[in-house]
């Protein structure tokens, strides 16, 4: 904790300052080379899906900003073919779910959506961007229980961390996460402090946003 942080904490202003601090979308683009490594070195295929998670603000202005995001994604979708869908999860968070087989397009769309919120002054509401990959072990076997691993980008921390949920359970596959961490370290800006590797549990077998 720096000196300024210490003073803020003593004055009782740290919670407010941290919760309203600007988003850091800079290192999001690390994914545009990382997905190649994922496939080449680990055999993880991009699942063709990514999502942006943010929490609501009770204001008309915020709803306007969301409408802007919707329009930008719709306009972009005409060109790139990226489908965008807005869903709300059980925790009351909103997800912009993007579908495209081209990972570059997914990253661009996530960045556009995030950037629009940042421009409107709502960067601090962004919780995470999530990129889904298919686990090689299960993708070859033809069964319904697809296993996914995720790269989660924290806008707050400006860093990525892996998230590998065991399908249908609230358990993390520590081995898979460790493997992801060690192979992608250096290529992605990784969150060093594992206390910040927050899970985003799926409701049941699907993705966290389903």
């Amino acid at each position, binding site marked *: 904790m720096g000196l300024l942080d210490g003073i803020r*904490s*003593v*004055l*009782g*202003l*740290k*919670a*407010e300052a*941290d*919760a*309203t*601090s600007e988003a850091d979308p800079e290192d999001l683009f690390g994914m545009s080379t990382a997905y190649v490594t994922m496939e080449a070195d680990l055999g993880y295929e991009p699942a063709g899906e990514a999502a942006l998670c943010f*929490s*609501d*603000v*009770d*204001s*008309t*202005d*915020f709803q*306007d900003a969301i409408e802007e995001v919707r329009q930008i994604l719709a306009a972009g979708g005409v060109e790139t073919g990226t489908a965008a869908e807005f869903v709300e999860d059980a*925790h*009351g*968070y909103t997800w912009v779910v993007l579908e495209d087989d081209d990972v570059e397009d997914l990253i661009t769309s996530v960045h556009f959506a995030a950037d629009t919120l940042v421009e*409107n*002054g*709502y960067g*601090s*509401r962004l*919780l*995470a961007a999530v990129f889904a990959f298919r686990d090689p072990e299960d993708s070859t076997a033809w069964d319904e229980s697809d296993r996914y691993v995720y790269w989660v980008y*924290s806008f*707050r*921390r400006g860093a990525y961390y892996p998230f590998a949920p065991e399908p249908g359970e*609230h358990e993390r596959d520590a081995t898979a996460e460790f493997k992801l961490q060690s192979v992608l370290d250096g290529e992605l800006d990784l969150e060093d*402090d594992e*206390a*910040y590797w*927050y*899970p985003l*549990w799926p409701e049941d077998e699907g993705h966290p946003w389903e």
Partner: protein
Amino acid sequence: MEWKRDRRLARRMVLAFVLSIGGYGALFGLIVLLSPWTVAVAVFAVVVVVLAILVREADRLTYYMTKAVAIDRDDYPALFDTVDRLAQQADMPRPPVAVIPSDEPNALSAGTGDRTVVCVTLGLLKTLDDDELDAVLAHELAHCKNGDSTVLTVAGFPTTVALLTLSGSLERMNGFALFLGYIGLVIVLAIVSLALLVVSLPGTLVLARYREYAADRGAVAITGKPVALAEALATLHGRDRRPESDLRSIAGLNAFCIVPSGTGLLTLPWTHPPVAKRIKRLRKVQETFEAGSKRD
């Protein structure tokens, strides 16, 4: 939207600290005045050690006093996941979460660093809806981040000493003391501790109140929903009071609760601003949210 900082809050916080230092001045002034310097140094050392223990073991003390039970995800998955998300939004590792088996809806946080535990009562989980519970939990997380348990323990120490001495000496003011002849000492102690209380109390109260306002603002910064917190406060405040026996279990930790709880000998009243005032300030925050949309 531009998040407006409350500059007045920061200034008042400084004032509260100056007042609290006054309390310490009075405490140590008394000790130095009443005893030789060797004793004064010894007392000073004891105070530092006691404070360090109180600060470090605040979470254990809370578990003990409230009978709180630390929970796992399996016990209360929804509550656990909610705290997860809020902590992520607040940019902090998830704190330990505990549930207090009490019907009185309340929440509190105590401890230092990553040992700060967030406690909610069963009554709270039953009384509030999802948004309101989010708001209350965010308020507690804001207390964690601001280190309020530590700040209030340290700043309120002279007041605590004064209260303990005063109540102790008042209890001993009886025929027994008169008979044994130490009534004079008891009376002097009572007067001295009353004086100390008068000097140190304002600082503690002002500080505690502003920490509440700051935590309210922090909570809104985390959830983005001032109205939900206002509604939660109104719900908790407007409830019929439950029987005394329920209240007692958390009364001792009043300064750390979301709403004041009951009354007890060691409980400080007025550590929380009136709920109506807190709600009014939250409405102001909501106003600035909407003002943003008009300006654009």
